[in-house]
């Protein structure tokens, strides 16, 4: 009995091994540039936790990451693949910046919630289209959501170079939004803003929907066995649209966080990896909201430390992508090991049962 709980602790820690192995592998890449990886990582984490500003920045960076992680993870629970978080994020950002610029005279107490709702609605609508294609035409949601990213990028590029371009007309970006539309800092002087708490609330919401409502039960049933769910009278086509709308709503909310919380404007092509990072975070967090929050914080720390590392040394910023990629790869490998361990356990307990009988 005791031994078994020992093993489950080992299993629960497996994401940590994956992260460790992923960092070791990226450390090997640093050797190519003749950098000591141990020193580099010491520097990276040293920077990330150096002072209150940087620690606060981890939370600021984690905020949109948690949301795009939720976007992939939520759909993944229904075995649906929402690869379109990047585009949904841009749609949310466009909606937020549009309202903030056009309704700038409104007081913050009205403007902020409006921007937030608009970003969620814009993201959800863009994503619901993918769900609709899936349910109406039985189209492959992986491909459609993937392609919807490129369409969203084109729309954003068009807007920031045309109708929404800054008044100066110099760069492909919008004007700065009025201060009443900025999300306030939680700790003055840092970028740690209220949005992080909203992201936590979003994670809680995802958990409640999935595990505490009948809708969530249906979503997970569709995810586990589509034909069984259909047989049980669950309208899977409706579930497809709902799941995509909710999932994309999270990604859209990330747009609000970045525009109103950090950038205070919309810059062409900003945060181009947020969508794929979200996938990595969701996988690392086992598509569970709590796991996603923790993985989001880890990726946030890697980004804060990684950015400073690449600014102060000759290590290029692409090392951050390499770290994320290797970590993901080792997470996938750890699934294999986990399944092996669980299978061996079952076999052993079966064999024991036979002996006793």
């Amino acid at each position, binding site marked *: 009995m005791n031994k078994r709980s020992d093993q489950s602790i080992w299993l629960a820690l497996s994401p940590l091994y994956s992260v460790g192995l992923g960092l070791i592998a990226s450390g090997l*890449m640093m050797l*190519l*540039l003749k950098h000591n990886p141990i020193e580099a990582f010491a520097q990276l984490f040293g920077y990330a936790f150096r002072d209150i500003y940087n620690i606060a920045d981890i939370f600021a960076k984690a905020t949109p990451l948690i949301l795009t992680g939720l976007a992939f993870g939520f759909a993944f629970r229904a075995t649906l*693949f929402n*690869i379109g978080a990047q585009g949904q994020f841009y749609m949310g950002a466009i909606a937020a910046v549009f309202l903030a610029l056009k309704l700038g005279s409104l007081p913050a107490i009205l403007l902020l919630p409006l921007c937030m709702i608009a970003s969620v609605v814009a993201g959800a609508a863009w994503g619901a289209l993918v769900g609709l*294609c899936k349910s109406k*035409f039985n*189209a*492959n949601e*992986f*491909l*459609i959501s*993937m*392609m*919807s*990213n*490129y*369409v969203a*990028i*084109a*729309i954003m*590029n*068009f807007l920031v*170079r*045309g109708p929404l371009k800054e008044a100066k007309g110099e760069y492909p970006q919008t004007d700065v939004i009025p201060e009443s539309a900025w999300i306030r800092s939680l700790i003055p002087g840092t970028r740690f803003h209220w949005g992080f708490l909203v992201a936590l609330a979003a994670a809680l919401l995802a958990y409640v929907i999935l595990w505490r409502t009948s809708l969530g039960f249906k979503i997970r049933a569709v995810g586990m066995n589509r034909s069984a769910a259909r047989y049980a009278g669950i309208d899977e086509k409706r579930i497809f649209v709902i799941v995509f709308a909710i999932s994309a709503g999270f990604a859209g909310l990330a747009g609000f966080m970045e525009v109103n919380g950090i950038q205070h404007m919309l810059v062409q092509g900003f945060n181009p*990896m947020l969508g*794929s*990072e979200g*996938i*990595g975070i969701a*996988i690392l967090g086992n598509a569970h909201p709590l796991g996603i929050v923790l993985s989001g914080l880890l990726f946030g720390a890697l980004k804060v430390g990684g950015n400073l590392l690449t600014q102060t040394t000759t290590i*290029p910023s*692409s*090392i*951050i*992508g*390499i*770290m*994320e*990629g*290797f970590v*993901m*790869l080792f*997470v*996938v*490998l750890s*699934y*294999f090991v986990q399944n092996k361990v669980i299978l061996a356990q079952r076999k052993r307990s079966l064999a024991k049962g036979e002996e006793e009988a």
Partner: protein
Amino acid sequence: MMMITGLLARALQMSTPLLLGALAEVFVERTGVMNMAIEGIFLMGAWGGFVGAYLTKNLFWGLMLAMAVGVAIGAVYAYITVRLKQHQIVTGVALNILSAGISVYLYRVLFGVPIIPLTVDSLRRIPIPLLSRIPILGPALFNQNILTYLALVLMPVGYWVLFKTRLGLVVRSTGANPEAVDAAGINVERTQFLAVLASSALDGLAGAFYSIGFLGMFSDDIIGGRGWIAFAICFLGNWNPIGALVGGLVFGLADSLAVLLQTSGIRIVPNELLIAVPYILTIIATIARKQFNVPACLGVPYVKERS
């Protein structure tokens, strides 16, 4: 007339990597495995093609290196998905992110931060005697580089191999009924593994087309989802090389029409939106496509029964 020739020539150019990638995907998916690392392999192929050509001053070694890095990524993908039977989409996404990081990183390792982008001469056009003199069509069809000819030849050859040879039969049966293939004494895992490697080599070549086929340089956004379009063409073409040929040509034509409109100065639609044409076309085609002939065990890892 000149315009039509230019349009067709460009269409064939644009469709070349899509044809190679789609054909690779047709073969691997016929064995029941989706090569979801395709976008990353395209990118690494573009990187390998450029680096090989730049360092050796010889485009041939560029193409070889492109295939080699393609196979390297393919081997990792095949090991995880075929051998360890892990999730294909998730593994593919991980490798794509990794490829994006590694290609840019290694470019930097090799070349530092050049002030002006490094370039190589791209693959030369090889006019085919007599045929290239045919008015209008000649210069478009018969004055292309070696990869374009290769792609056009490989499509019918691929069809013949897939449907008329024993090898093709094994490939098709592996995806349709792996148990039967296993019972016939053919190693399912090995067939799938080799198919992933072969498709990755071809994907690497396709990627190299973007760097040394016509641009003569490498950048991190050089592929920009074209690998996924090739992936889509495979299934829009119903897992058939001839279908993939038609799909690839349509996409090439759409792409070159969009470029023509962008450069013509006629502003019906903003240029930023014209860039989205191939992606929108993929969405429409994915929705419109109805009758599918999906390999029965596509994406389902084959686990051998043990008694």
